[in-house]
C-alpha cells in the first residue's frame, strides 16, 4: 500500500521535472523560460521529497530509527527549496529586465522607466541635489 503511493509520488515528480526541461528548451523568451524552469521544478521537488518523507515514515513504522532522521532532514531540505527557489527566480527576472532584455512580442512595458541607466541618473541627481543643499 505504502509502496504504491511512493511510486505514484515519484512518477508525478519526475513528470513535472521533465516538463521543466522540455519547457526550458522550447520556450522563446527569458521570462517564459524562467516560468517553466522554476515553477515546474519547485512543484516536482515537492512530490519527490514527499515520497522520500513517506518512505522514511514507513521505515520508522517498521522499526528502523534511521527512517525518522531521513524524514525530518528531508522536510528541512524541502523547506530550504521552497523558500529559496521563488526568491531566486524573482531576482533573476528583475536582473533580466534591468539589464535590458525585452519580452518577445510585448507591446506595453510598464516598467520602462526602471532601467539601470535611468535609475543611476536619478540616484546621481539626488546625490548632487543633497550636496548642493549642503
Amino acid at each position, binding site marked *: 500500500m505504502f*509502496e504504491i503511493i511512493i*511510486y505514484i509520488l*515519484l512518477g508525478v*515528480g*519526475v513528470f513535472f*521535472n*521533465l516538463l*521543466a*526541461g*522540455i519547457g*526550458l*528548451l522550447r520556450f522563446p523568451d*527569458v521570462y517564459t*523560460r*524562467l516560468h517553466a*524552469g*522554476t515553477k515546474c*521544478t*519547485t512543484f*516536482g*521537488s515537492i512530490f*519527490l*521529497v514527499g*515520497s*522520500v518523507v513517506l*518512505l*522514511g515514515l514507513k*521505515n520508522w513504522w517498521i522499526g528502523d530509527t*534511521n527512517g525518522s*532522521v*531521513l524524514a525530518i*532532514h*528531508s522536510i*528541512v*531540505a524541502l523547506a*530550504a*527549496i521552497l523558500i*529559496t*527557489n521563488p*526568491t*531566486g*527566480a524573482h*531576482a*533573476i527576472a*528583475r*536582473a*533580466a529586465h*534591468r*539589464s535590458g*532584455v525585452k519580452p518577445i512580442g510585448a507591446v506595453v512595458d510598464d516598467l520602462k522607466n526602471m532601467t*539601470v541607466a535611468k*535609475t*543611476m541618473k536619478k*540616484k546621481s541627481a539626488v546625490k548632487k541635489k543633497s550636496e548642493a543643499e549642503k
Partner: protein
Amino acid sequence: MMAFEYLIVFLALLLCSIMAMIRVIRGPTAPDRIVGLDTINTIVIVLMVVFGAAFNEVIYIDVAIVYALLSFISTLFIAKYLEGGEF
C-alpha cells in the same frame, strides 16, 4: 532495496539536467544561462535527496540542505552582478 525504480528516477533527472545544460550552452543572452543554472541546481538538490532515500543514508540529505542554501546565495549574487549598479 527498491533499486530499479530509483535507477529510472535518476536517469530521468539526469535527462532534465542535460536539457538545462543545453540551454546553458546555447542561450542567446546571459539571463538565459542563469535560468538554466538555477534549474540544474534545483534538480541536483532533489537528486541528492532521492539518493539518500535509495541508499538509506542521511548524509546525502544534509549535503542537499547546504547545497540549497549556497546555490541560493550564488544565484542572488550573479543576478545582482548582472543588474549592474551599486551593491
